[in-house]
Structure formats: structure tokens, C-alpha cells
């Protein structure tokens, strides 16, 4: 793979920098200003920004378009792709389009089922699963062929990410799954947000023992809690989130107007612990609709300034 074509995120991780990525949700509409405003809040604080793909099955501006807006601002996007809405034909097509637009990072997940949200009447696709999509993006990169075996003209060469959830059921199977994802093509992993440090530590230790932390870069997810109500809601209603009672008690133990600060403190303590763990290559800050907090977190965690990569002139060959 041509070194000059590598994304900034990939190059930083290769150099051993503790990376910071953040998330940005496109608007429900065509207002590019919303994306640009979020982008400005994240500028200089995140090495790359994930742009979600019709997250929670709510119809939003496409991930591809939103990525273009960020790219035009000089930010590095990570284009998320779900398998819920598009078949293998459309997904391959989008990868090629993305690469031609100079995106270099992609992130692959199945996506929330459409019965949740704004279009429950829709037919879903799920032609391939996220493991197949990882495999496809990797094959395109390594062999220059699409899924039908056709030799591509300027095959895309993406830095590929996948999700991992150390807190979901069934726990014991999670490491087998992580290994499978990395074999299929995941270069980097972003995890579900961490509150239960003990369980996370167990997971990363097991991953390390299997050599997985050498094969892929693991970025631990963090989300600052805003209130005790948010903590309780997430703990009981969102699948795969594990918030220990001790954390909920801390959030409840402070008066309402101080809750956000306490949430931030918990987040910073978590980041400090994560930096000590072997096998963690960075953090992924998920502060959806709370993007202004990202800068505050990165500053307080003493992760500033973010390192720059000298202009390498990404080629369009």
C-alpha cells in the first residue's frame, strides 16, 4: 500500500501516538451549516471524526456528503457504513466514491434495526453483514478486485474500522468475535463507551493475550454523563452499556447543577486509567449533541496539542 495514501489517523497510530477520535452526527435535513458548526467545535481536538450513517435508523444527511463537508474544512473524516440500508452493490460503489473524494477511513457496523426509528415501515437490506463488509473493503485494498472478482481501476485503499462491545452479551464469546473481525479486515477498533473499568480491563487483557492488540489498534470509547437521569436511562435501556452502581451513585450524589461536571470528572478519570492500560491505542469520544464538550475533555485530559502529519500530498492515482 502506497504510504502517501494513508490517512492521518493511520499514520499517527503507526507512530504510536495515543489517538483521539470523535463522533459527529449529520443533521435531519440538508443544512450543511450544522455539520460545519460541529466540525469547528472538533477542529484541532480530534485526529479524525466519525460521521454516522443514518444512526438509530433515523433519516439524516448521508454520511458521504457530511464527510465531504468536513473534508472541505480540512478535517479528517471516518465514513461510517451500515449494512442495514444498502446492498453489496451500493456499498462497493460508495467505497469507490468515498475514496475518489479522498476519504481514507471507513468504519463498518450492521446498524440499528429500522423498527426503532423514524421509518419503521421500511424494508431493510442486510444483504451482507458487517463482517462481510470488512472482508470486502480489505479485499478491495489488498487484491484490487471487487466482490465479483473484477479488477478495479484505482482500487480504494481504506483504513478500516469496526466496533467492539466488551460489555455486551455473551461476554465469553466477545474475544472470539474480536479476533474474527480483525482477521476479516479490521485495522482499528472503536469500543462501546467505558464506565465499567474492571470489565474493560478483563476484556483488553484477554485480547492482549491472544495477540489481538498487536494486530489492530484499539480505541476505547468514552461518553461524558450529563445527569443522573442519563446514567440511569443508559444503564437500563440501552443494550450493551454497562454502568456500575458506583458510577450511578456518584452522579446521584451531587446536586443537579453540578451533575455535568461530575460526569466530566468521571470521564477524565476513565481516560487517565485507559492511558495506563496496555493495548489501548487511543480514545473515541462519543458526545453526540454534546460536541462542545470534546475540546474541554481533550484539554483537561492533557492530550493537547494534537500532533500534525506533514502534508504528504495524498495522490489520486
Amino acid at each position, binding site marked *: 500500500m502506497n504510504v502517501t495514501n494513508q490517512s492521518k489517523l493511520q499514520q499517527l497510530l503507526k507512530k504510536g501516538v495515543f489517538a483521539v477520535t470523535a463522533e459527529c452526527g449529520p443533521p435531519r435535513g440538508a443544512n450543511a451549516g450544522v455539520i460545519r458548526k460541529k466540525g469547528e467545535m472538533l477542529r484541532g481536538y480530534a485526529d479524525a471524526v466519525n460521521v454516522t450513517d443514518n444512526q438509530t435508523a433515523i433519516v439524516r444527511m448521508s454520511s458521504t456528503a457530511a464527510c465531504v463537508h468536513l473534508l472541505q474544512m480540512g478535517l479528517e473524516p471516518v465514513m461510517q457504513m451500515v449494512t442495514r440500508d444498502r446492498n453489496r452493490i451500493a456499498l462497493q460503489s460508495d467505497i469507490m466514491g468515498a475514496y475518489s473524494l479522498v476519504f481514507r477511513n471507513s468504519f463498518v457496523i450492521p446498524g440499528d*434495526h429500522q423498527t426503532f426509528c423514524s421509518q419503521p415501515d421500511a424494508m431493510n437490506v442486510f*444483504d451482507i453483514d458487517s463482517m462481510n463488509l470488512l472482508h470486502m473493503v480489505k479485499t478491495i485494498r489488498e487484491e484490487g478486485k471487487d466482490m465479483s472478482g473484477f479488477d478495479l481501476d484505482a482500487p480504494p485503499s481504506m483504513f478500516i474500522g469496526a466496533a467492539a462491545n466488551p460489555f455486551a*452479551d455473551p461476554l465469553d464469546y466477545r474475544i472470539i468475535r474480536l479476533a474474527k473481525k480483525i482477521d476479516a479486515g479490521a485495522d482499528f477498533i472503536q469500543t462501546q463507551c467505558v464506565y465499567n473499568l474492571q470489565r474493560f480491563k478483563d476484556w483488553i487483557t484477554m485480547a492482549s493475550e491472544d495477540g489481538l492488540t498487536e494486530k489492530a489498534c484499539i480505541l476505547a470509547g468514552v461518553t461524558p454523563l450529563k445527569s443522573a437521569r442519563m446514567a440511569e436511562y443508559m444503564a437500563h435501556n440501552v*443494550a450493551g452499556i454497562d454502568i456500575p452502581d458506583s458510577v450511578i451513585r456518584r452522579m446521584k450524589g451531587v446536586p443537579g447543577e453540578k451533575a455535568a461536571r461530575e460526569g466530566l470528572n468521571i470521564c477524565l478519570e476513565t481516560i487517565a486509567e485507559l492511558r495506563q492500560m496496555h493495548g489501548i491505542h487511543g480514545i473515541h469520544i462519543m458526545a453526540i449533541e454534546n460536541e462542545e464538550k470534546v475540546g474541554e475533555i481533550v484539554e483537561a485530559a492533557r492530550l493537547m496539542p494534537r500532533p500534525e502529519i506533514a502534508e504528504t500530498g495524498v495522490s489520486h492515482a
Partner: protein
Amino acid sequence: MIVGEQKKLAEIKEIVAPYRKLLLLGCGTCVKTCFAGGEDEVAALASALRLAFKQDGRDIEIEELTVERQCEDEFIQEAAEAVARNDAILSLACGAGVQDIARRFGNVPVLPGVNTTFIGVLEKPGLFTEECSGCGDCILTTFGGICPITRCAKKLLNGPCGGSREGRCEVNPDTECAWQLIIDRLRALKQLDNLKTYMPAKNWRTSHAGGPRKLFREDLAI
């Protein structure tokens, strides 16, 4: 069996309203076993329709007949005389049966009285669950007899996703996570290693996605 549910009375009333003489045709196979369209259901529906039309001050003549299956000509032909006596047929068979009746007796309106849903089993009294979506290329061997195409809402072949909660699917807490079931079953069979193998993208050509399907058996064609 093929599982279906009888349409609501109000909808059926509207569907049959234009007709004076109605043949109410039941089926003795799948819809009988899911209590949607067998002999008993035909009798009850006929009675309910008569009472309902009486309420409206209207008369309707309903002839009741049930054949063994509405998907085979041999049994459909038994209804020929009854069809000739009536203005329309309300069939309580599955969608395939309704269409086969329409194919044979095309000069009479053939109306559906059942909403056909899925291929499934009777899990316990009163509970029918979907198990097979007819993908045409059965892979139950790998998954210990539990189908990820049908029973996983996202059709994952390399599951699970991160959405299950205590063994329940994120889509519906009444639905078990198919992948939890697969993992438990394979563990019991000491075949959990099956899941280490990468499952490539499915070839959907043998499924309905490849277009409406036919099966031609040369050995049975006389």
C-alpha cells in the same frame, strides 16, 4: 406449517359486500393447524357474517365447504360444483391456495380471508413462531439447527451484533436473540468452533431475491 391469521370481520365484510351468494372455502392443512381457515373457522366465520349482515338489514347466502388443500388441483376440483352455484369465493387458505383457486376458477372473483405471514412452528399452545424464510440453501448444519437468516433480525451470518440484552433481541424484548441461542446450542454440542470460521456473504440467488421461484421435478412429470 404456513402460518396466517384470519382478517378482521370488518375487513372481510367489506371485501364480500358486493356479493349475494358466497362460497366460503376452507383448507384442511396449514391454516387448519394454525386455526385460521379450517372447517371450524369456516363455520364460525359464516355464522358471524350472517349475523353481521343481518344487523345491517341485509341478507347473504353463504355456502360452506372445506377441502383438504387448496394448493393441489386434485383437491381443488372437489369444489367445482359449489363454485358454479356462487357469485364469489372467499378463500381462507394461505396466499398460495387463494391464487391456485383463482387459477382454476378464474371466471369467479376469488377473495382472501386470511393474512398469510410465515413458515413456522407451534412453539407452545397459542404461540406460533417464524423459523424458516426459504432461502433455498440451508445452512442449519453450521448453526446447530437454529437459522440466523430467519431468526436474527439482521440476518447476520457472523453474529451476534452488540444489541442483545440478556439474550433478547434489540428489536423486540419478546424475541430471543438467535445468536445467543446458536452459541448456547453449539456449546452444548461442543461445536462452538464452528463460529470461528468466517462465513462469506450469502448468495441470495436461490432465495426470493432472485425472483419468483419454480421447482421442476422431471422424475415426477408424467
